């Protein structure tokens, strides 16, 4: 077992884990943060995307021990319980950027990462290129792209990053 200490959604967490524990397993099974999903489990679909030190990564392809000493943010960390949604979450709700919702946490974490890197004015082409690592099997992406464009703009006016 290996002892790890990290910050998850702003809270310090310490745990003993088997080194082969994936970050996504640690989040879901140890911390019960089940908003982060396992889709393909082969680093392609993006359902498991979380932010590691502020950057979007695939938590199914990251070992929990590699996150020792680092900071992780999951979909649960975007807005407090009962508080208004994060503007990107709100944009997905408003623009119906989902059907079954399985890919949505990863889509939203990726979308926020896109805004951090590319700014608040995103054209459709940029959004589609940047979504290369996130698969949705329901929507055909149209509303996801619309949601991200709107969410990016809304983030400019929000205190939530």
């Amino acid at each position, binding site marked *: 077992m*290996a002892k790890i200490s990290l910050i998850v959604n702003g809270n310090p967490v310490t745990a003993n884990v*088997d*080194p*082969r524990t*994936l970050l996504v397993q640690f989040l879901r099974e140890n911390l019960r943060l089940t908003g982060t999903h396992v889709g393909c*489990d*082969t*680093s392609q679909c*993006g359902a498991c*995307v979380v932010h*590691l030190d502020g*950057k*979007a*990564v*695939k938590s199914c*392809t*990251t*070992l929990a*021990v*590699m996150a*020792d000493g680092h900071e992780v943010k999951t979909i649960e960390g975007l807005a407090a319980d009962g508080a208004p949604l994060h503007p990107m979450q709100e944009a997905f709700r408003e623009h119906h950027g989902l059907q079954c919702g399985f890919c949505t946490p990863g889509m939203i974490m*990726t979308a926020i*990462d*896109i805004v951090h*890197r590319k700014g608040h004015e995103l054209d459709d082409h940029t959004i589609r290129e*940047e979504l*290369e*690592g*996130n698969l949705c099997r329901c929507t055909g992406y149209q509303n996801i792209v619309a949601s991200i464009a709107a969410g990016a703009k809304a983030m400019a006016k929000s205190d939530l990053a």
Partner: protein
Amino acid sequence: MYEFKYHRPGTVRQAANLLVKNEDAKVIAGGHTLIPVMKQRLASPPHLVDLSHIEGLDTIEMKGRSLVIGATARHADVASSAIVGEAIPALANLAGGIGDPAVRHKGTIGGSLANNDPTADYPAAVLALGATIVTNKRRLKAEEYFQGLFTTALEADEIITKVMFPLPKKAAYVKFRNQASRYALVGVFVARRPSDVRVAVTGAGSEGVFRVTAFEEALKKRFAAKAIEGIEVPAEGLNSDIHGSAEYRAHLIGVLTRRAVDAANAKE
């Protein structure tokens, strides 16, 4: 995944000592090839030595007339580096086309080269640009470094520390992606260097990355897409699978080389 012990050395020397002490230990940095392979139980290293916390191993800088990229520089860092964009824009462009944004936040140049996947992008750049791979033990020329499928000149306890790229006059990388996996079905890196031209191909060769000397000679005489018209690339030794026959890949090498030459010339 099978059990393993995880090590996080602070220096390259410590990392190398861990490799010497622990037989069959593997080096990990971004983990975007090794972890999937371990999940499939195709690899079961008893020890993992994580290089990603060694300070200074991801530095990107100009040294004299060479662009020097540290082994743990991530694809996203190379893609967005102003230094790389200025020195060898084709290399920044290549790094920005590897995998997807989340993969580029983790995957490293050293990892890509140490793995030498036959469809990886970086090997084509290293071979075409005539880069030098620097390890904790020695310097390896690109030509002696790549030794076939997933095979390199690296010894078991040898660690890539940086890659030195001499600056080309012009360069471009063009790849034709497999529509499903998005890996290069064929990728061609063309570099017009001060003394010659090099054309390196990834994705197509059954022995991994290779050079097309017939194209190189023609392009050295005249660096224009027209210069290689009519020169056939033999299908022999190329991959043939459900994604494309050897003949198809041979054809693509010609098409992509012409596009890369045009792209390199367009950057003036």
